[in-house]
């Protein structure tokens, strides 16, 4: 190769390399890859595609893609997490977070596949928006699954399914229609961006299960970890099957009922002692619980 030509090629390579380095250097880190099953890749603005690895930074405006076997979990500085399912493509197109004030905004654009969002600080203040081809949904204070149904779940929803797990979902579409889902476990299947939203329904367990399986590891995958966590680790760190409170059990409810009975029997008794007649007003009411 002539010297001049070699110089041009070298210059181009160095330029491309510098450009990549520069664009990655100025790209703001918004979180990191905390689990990844191949193949999953990231494309930062102005950079080439890279395979996602455990602990790698996720930068603003990065496109995340997964293959038919791939899945990932991204964790963000505001404590939120995003599980990306198989055959998915999304962009973190907005992330502003001030850890001191605990405020910020976050946006995700899902064009393909499934995501499961579990909220952090931002979703508890201004809300997180997830854009899909059929609607934009604001997730406030909680957890949601959004996605194009896979082969099984497609029988249930041929479009994009939005499921509220914790908190509130507020949806809008091009027709100007809005819908708020505050009930956990409820969701809607949306097939068009230009028609009113259908009424939310309780999503069947098997559909949720299908989506969860899609956004996790299958039996042979380990999310990029080599030394796997064990139940013994969980026990060692104090996770020993905690108990829950019994339902509807305020013991003072019983005291309140008994006090009401006291009012009646005591009032009647005191009146008889005072006047010798049956029935009279209650005494000053015993303290209710």
């Amino acid at each position: 190769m002539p010297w001049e030509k070699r110089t041009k090629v070298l210059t181009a390579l160095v330029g491309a390399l510098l450009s990549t380095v520069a664009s990655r250097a100025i790209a703001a880190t918004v979180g990191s890859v905390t689990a990844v099953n191949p193949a999953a890749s990231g494309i930062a603005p102005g950079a080439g595609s890279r395979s996602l690895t455990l602990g790698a930074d996720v930068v603003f405006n990065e496109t995340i893609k997964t293959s038919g076997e791939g899945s990932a979990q991204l964790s963000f500085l505001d404590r939120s997490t995003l599980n990306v399912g198989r055959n998915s493509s999304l962009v973190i197109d907005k992330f502003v977070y001030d850890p001191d004030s605990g405020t910020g905004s976050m946006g995700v654009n899902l064009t393909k596949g499934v995501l499961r969002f579990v909220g952090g600080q931002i979703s508890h203040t201004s809300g997180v928006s997830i854009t899909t081809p059929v609607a934009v949904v604001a997730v406030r204070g909680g957890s949601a699954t959004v996605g194009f149904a896979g082969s099984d779940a497609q029988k249930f929803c041929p479009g994009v399914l939005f499921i509220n797990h914790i908190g509130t979902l507020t949806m809008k579409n091009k027709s100007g229609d809005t819908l708020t889902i505050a009930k956990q476990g409820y969701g809607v299947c949306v097939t068009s961006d230009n028609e009113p939203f259908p009424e939310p329904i309780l999503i069947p367990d098997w559909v949720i299960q299908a989506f969860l399986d899609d956004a996790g590891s299958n039996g042979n995958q380990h999310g990029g970890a080599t030394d796997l966590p064990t139940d013994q680790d969980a026990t060692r760190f104090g996770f020993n099957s905690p108990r829950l409170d019994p339902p509807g059990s305020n013991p003072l409810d019983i005291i309140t009922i008994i006090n009401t009975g006291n009012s009646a029997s005591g009032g009647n008794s005191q009146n008889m002692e005072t006047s010798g007649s049956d029935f009279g007003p209650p005494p000053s009411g015993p303290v209710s619980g």
Partner: protein
Amino acid sequence: MTCFVRSGALLGACVAVLALCAYAMPGARAAEVTAADQKVLLVKALKHPDDYQTVFEYVRVSEELHDYEAAIGALERLLFYNPKLTRVKYELATLYYRSGSYQMAVDYFKKTLASPDLDADTRSRIDAYLPLAEKENSPVRTWLFLQAGIRYQSNASFTPSSGMVLDSGSGFPVPLDLSQPHGADWNAFALGLFANDIDFGNAPGDRFETRVTGYATNQFALPSLNVGLLSGSFGPRLALAPITWPGLTIKPYVVGSAIWVAGAPYTTEGGGGVTLSAPFGKMLTITPYIEWQRADYSNGDPANQLGTADMLTAAASAALKLGDAVTLNGGFSYQRSTADMPDQSNTQYSEQFSVAFRFDPPFAHIAQKWTLTPFVGFTQTAFDIPNPAVDPGVTRSDTSWQAGVAFDTPLTAHFGVAGALTYQNTASNIINYSFDDWSAIIGPTLRF
């Protein structure tokens, strides 16, 4: 007024003592000592996501801060690494349950049950919790609490402590008529609490609530003090601002009750009210209400209308969770009774305070936590004018306080034992109404 001030000071002292006890519980102080740690652990966990000690510590700190979502995200990450983690699936189920996401809780409980290495104690807990989660996830939900037991009272008839009453003729104190029922007694009692919620199936999660309470006693020695009570309320609970203030609800309701004494009708009440439930963050919920009821003591006999009144109640209660182990409850109410007989009209103020301590039972196979609840309360009642039939020269004024401790000890998913020890003291400026009473109840419980 002096009594009011004095009882207020006493209430303050009791509140301070109970609050100090609550503060002394380890679970209550967790939020304070770990709030800053979460940020440090997050940064570390993001950089080294497979540093499991850091991840578990982050989960523990997040749970103690009631930041269940942060804990959920981190635990689901561990399932990415090892989908067979039985304890992590169980932990996720309980976190979703406590977050009100019952469908996810059901899913993780079922996954945990399917784990081949599940231990017997965890299995028994899931056997208790899974039906509860499935019920909560259902559009129609019914709960039933039943208790039967025995009760002892040192002064079942609320007889004046002095043993004297005012003679309605002379106005002078005279010894009690001992032919009237009085003194200590035991009774057998049964009570039931029924609750039913029906979802409207709409997006905000509105529902229709029905509550029914029943209570009956059978005195061993003083049958004239037997009581029967049936009360109920129903109304829709509606989300007020699901987007800007999730959890804020309003409930207009209809309420009514009937009481029998010694097998004969004593009073019927009916009316309506409106209540709000306003959560402030994950720890504090305030519930104010205003209610009107007509209380009818006439029992069909026009001569016996002494207490018949319109009653207007304005009240508010608050529940503050201090960690998972301690909940502070407080309440205040104002009630104005405008009676048909002017000498029965009165104004009443009540304040209550309690601390619920929840703790693990001593046996691993018992699925649910036990609860110990010390409580105190005060009631001040001031009548408008003297009652000429009792003492035409004195307007009755009572100050009543009550203190005690209640316990609730579930033994299986449905069966348990509950009870309470209570002391009540009422001081009145008319000797007829000054009394005290010790009360102890205990009995088996059933929950469905």
